[in-house]
């Protein structure tokens, strides 16, 4: 039973890591139906920026708590800036092009950003300081769940709730939903479609940066390639939950995390990803638009 619980919690943490990245993925997908392959790279850049800020500030001997806050803030700002620029350069000129062209453009951007960081920084793994102190109160359970895990879990939940509220109830949220369904009509209703799309990228990038900082401090190291693998997994999570749906992304992340965790725990980690993908296929066979995805069947 203990073992089960441990695997369950482990899967939960892993799942919320996927979820944090998947949230941005799904949001961008929702608005322009583009698989933003470079989303993982935004997350990687967020983590790198944070690490750079930390290193610089640490060398000045600043208070660690202040350092963490500043680093997180700067990482979010920069990720947003990168997300914004990315959209302007690689996606906006392709608004009316075939969707696959935009996908290739995204792949190109992903390659570019990886190698940009590789060349400007390093190919090596860099240690990322654990920013989150061990909490006293969970010390007795430390063998099951760590403080970083708790922080990641809570952040995922908070981010999801904030985003859901934003999209459900605010004006910009309404504009986002309208834009995602019918761009022409949205602009006829007075919505500035370009601004809305930029805003969505910025929002998605911000969550990616938050994810980047937390995940990097959970894993303890980063390099230029972390974005790609995490990006693919997050994409799977987003699809599993029903792409375009925020709670879906989170649920998809959890389901994926649990599948991997239990498959490893009870079967073998050799085939961990095989089980994850098989499970994905199974779910999609029974629910072709993901767990929480809306059915795409349009009325004839």
């Amino acid at each position, binding site marked *: 039973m203990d073992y089960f619980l441990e695997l369950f919690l482990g899967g939960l943490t892993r799942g919320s890591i996927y979820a944090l990245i998947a949230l941005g993925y799904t949001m961008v997908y929702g608005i322009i139906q583009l698989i933003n392959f470079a989303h993982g790279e935004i997350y990687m850049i967020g983590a790198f920026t944070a690490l750079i800020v930390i290193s610089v500030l640490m060398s000045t001997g600043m208070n660690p708590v202040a350092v963490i806050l500043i680093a997180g803030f700067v990482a979010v700002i920069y990720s947003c800036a990168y997300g914004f620029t990315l959209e302007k350069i690689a996606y906006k000129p*392709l608004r009316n092009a075939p969707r696959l062209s935009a996908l290739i453009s995204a792949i190109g951007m*992903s390659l570019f950003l990886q190698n940009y960081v590789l060349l400007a920084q390093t190919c090596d793994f860099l240690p990322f300081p654990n920013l989150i102190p061990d909490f006293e109160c969970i010390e007795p359970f430390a063998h099951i769940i760590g403080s970083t895990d708790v922080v990641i879990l809570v952040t995922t939940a908070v981010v999801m709730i904030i985003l859901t509220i934003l999209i459900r109830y605010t004006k910009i949220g309404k504009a986002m939903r309208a834009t995602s369904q019918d761009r022409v009509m949205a602009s006829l209703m007075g919505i500035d479609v370009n601004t809305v799309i930029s805003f969505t990228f910025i929002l998605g990038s911000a969550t990616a940066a938050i994810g980047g900082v937390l995940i990097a401090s959970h894993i303890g190291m980063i390099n230029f390639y972390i974005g790609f693998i995490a990006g693919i997994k997050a994409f799977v999570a987003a699809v599993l939950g029903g792409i375009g749906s925020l709670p879906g992304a989170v649920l998809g992340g959890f389901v994926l995390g649990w599948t991997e965790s239990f498959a490893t725990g009870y079967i073998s980690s050799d085939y961990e990803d095989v089980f994850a993908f098989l499970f994905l296929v199974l779910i999609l066979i029974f629910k072709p638009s993901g767990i929480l995805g809306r059915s795409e069947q349009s009325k004839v």
Partner: protein
Amino acid sequence: MRKFAEIRKSLYVALWFIFLTFPIMVIRINPLEKTVEWRWMNMALVGIGTFFLSFLWRYLISKKEEGSKRAEEKQNEKISKLRRLIENRKIIAGSVVAGALLAAVFPFVVSLYQTNIMTTALIYVMLGLGLNIVVGLAGLLDLGYVAFYAVGAYAYALLNYHFGLNFWMVLPVGAALGALFGILLGFPVLRLRGDYLAIVTLGFGEIIRLILENWNEFSFGPSGISNISRPPLFGIELSVQNATVYMYYIMIFLCLVTIFIVKRLQDSRIGRAWVALREDEVACQAMGIDRTKTKLTAFALGATWAGMGGVVFAAKTTFVNPASFTIWESIIILCIVVLGGMGSVIGVITGAFIIILLPEYLRVFSEFRMLMFGIILVVMMVFRPGGIISGVRRTYKFEGKNF
């Protein structure tokens, strides 16, 4: 006045990029040594570089917009000119002969290296044409195409290892296995739409790779299978040098066959059904087209070429291991199809040459290679979103014969 505004715009762009690249380009940290290095030079470079590039970018974008307007105005004219060119038998015959001659003497005028990478490129031409059936014609986004490639490669590797079968015997087996896997994998998932299909096929690609990686008894795991025999020429074993050249001719032959078949399929009843299916599924069903069956045919046919490509790959490299079949491989093949121009055979060929040969020739730029490759992908798509040779489908025209 206009000029001034332009300069100001570029200035803003430069400032923005200086800001954007500041942490990553200027500061280099080394957390191991706890040192921080400031590279102010880079900041100046970024500033100046983006300042000028932004002029170029805006110029090109405006050109493109104008171009798209004007191009279409002139399209008719252009098309008819092109058509006249194409329909001029002499020119066709001339270029075909020239191309054939060039292809025939190629290995004798260039180095072994050039022949070798050309063979690689030709393999990708074949893969691209195969994937083009799935993505370009039937509109099914397949990110796991590499799975069938792996099936073909391992089929040859294993049959050769265990039973000593040679290349020519396994080539049809590889094709058949590819098709079989295409049907097996396609069957449960083809009712999924667009991006859902993409992710599931991606998953299948990974599953196949992971199985090859983990199932040592079957596939020899990550260390792979080596010393696979090269194709024999009438039972004669060739030296590496000659084998490379031989391989080149085999690929030329296979590519010609592929082009022939793909062209024929494209212009057939089934080819039309694929295109229609891409346009509107509901209407297609109302026309009596069996959605699943038609999609499955496309999927299986695409996989057939991948299976064959795999056999050739194993014979050329003489070694297979799972590392050759990562998702990047699927992505590369997809890039070939889209960059070249979906649905266009010449486009796919051009795409394959660019995507495969470009990184090879970019070797001059060594570590900037992949960076440039990424930029080129983006720039190509931004300025030629329909691909290099945008797929002008051969539409059925009625030539007004009398009835």
